[in-house]
């Protein structure tokens, strides 16, 4: 096991190249995606998404976003609405104030702000569980 501080630094370095706006995937407000999406970069959703999503970076769900389905991500910042499904987060899952989540959450670390609405189950991921559940979608990137 690595010290917690060191691990955090590594995560930041890993995400640094994706800070270029052109590398961030985006589902804009007014756009609806349904299907499977796999990405090595970050993704921001402000529109609607229904399906399965695999993201090796950070998933940001904006306030107006409505999502449904299975999500496999390294980090998640959630401010929108989830109407059903599962979120698997390899590192940190953060539910922001006024978000609304119906679904089950799996994570390593979890943070909830005041006024976040959450209905569902919570579970800490076991070693290797993330890789196992996300394997099918991760192959899309190859």
């Amino acid at each position: 096991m690595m010290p917690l501080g060191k691990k955090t630094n590594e995560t930041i370095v890993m995400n640094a190249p994706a800070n270029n706006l052109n590398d961030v995937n985006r589902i804009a407000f007014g756009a609806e995606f349904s299907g499977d999406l796999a990405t090595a970069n970050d993704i921001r959703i402000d529109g609607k998404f229904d399906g399965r999503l695999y993201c090796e970076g950070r998933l940001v769900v904006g306030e107006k976003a409505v999502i449904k389905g299975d999500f496999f991500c390294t980090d998640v910042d959630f401010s929108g609405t989830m109407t059903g499904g599962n979120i698997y987060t390899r590192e940190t899952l953060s539910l922001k104030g006024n978000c609304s989540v119906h679904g089950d959450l799996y994570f390593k670390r979890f943070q909830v702000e005041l006024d976040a609405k959450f209905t569902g189950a919570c579970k800490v991921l076991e070693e290797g569980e993330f890789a196992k559940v996300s394997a099918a979608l991760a192959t899309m990137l190859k």
Partner: protein
Amino acid sequence: MDNNVNLNEVSRISAGTAFKGEITTSGDIRIDGKFEGRLNSKGRLVAGEGAQVNGDVICQNVDFSGKMGKGTVYVADTLALKSGCSVNGDVHYKRLQVELDAKINGSLHTLDEAEFNKIANQSAAVKAAPSKPAQNEKQDDAAGKEN
């Protein structure tokens, strides 16, 4: 033409991303990764040099620099095939612009507004999936004729 597009309103499939499925959007979209499925946009599609597109695309305007494996493209206004792009498939457009060194294997068709609207509506109906609304429309049509 409004070239000052707010970046936040553009959907984007970046390089290093694969998407399989269906996209409907009222705004613009940029693809630099892999796309497979159906895209219906009321705005502009920009496919970058690294983009791989397979499937049906229905758009207002298209700037295409990437690779299209197989599929059909319907463009209500202008289709621009940029230098270095490669298109295998059928393209339907109102206005076409092709740069030197664009590779095209497929058929080219012009498209008028009525045809485009028909195809766009059909695609929207397929997307709405449940067959009930379509049936209702037919019934309404039949009722209209009787009257």
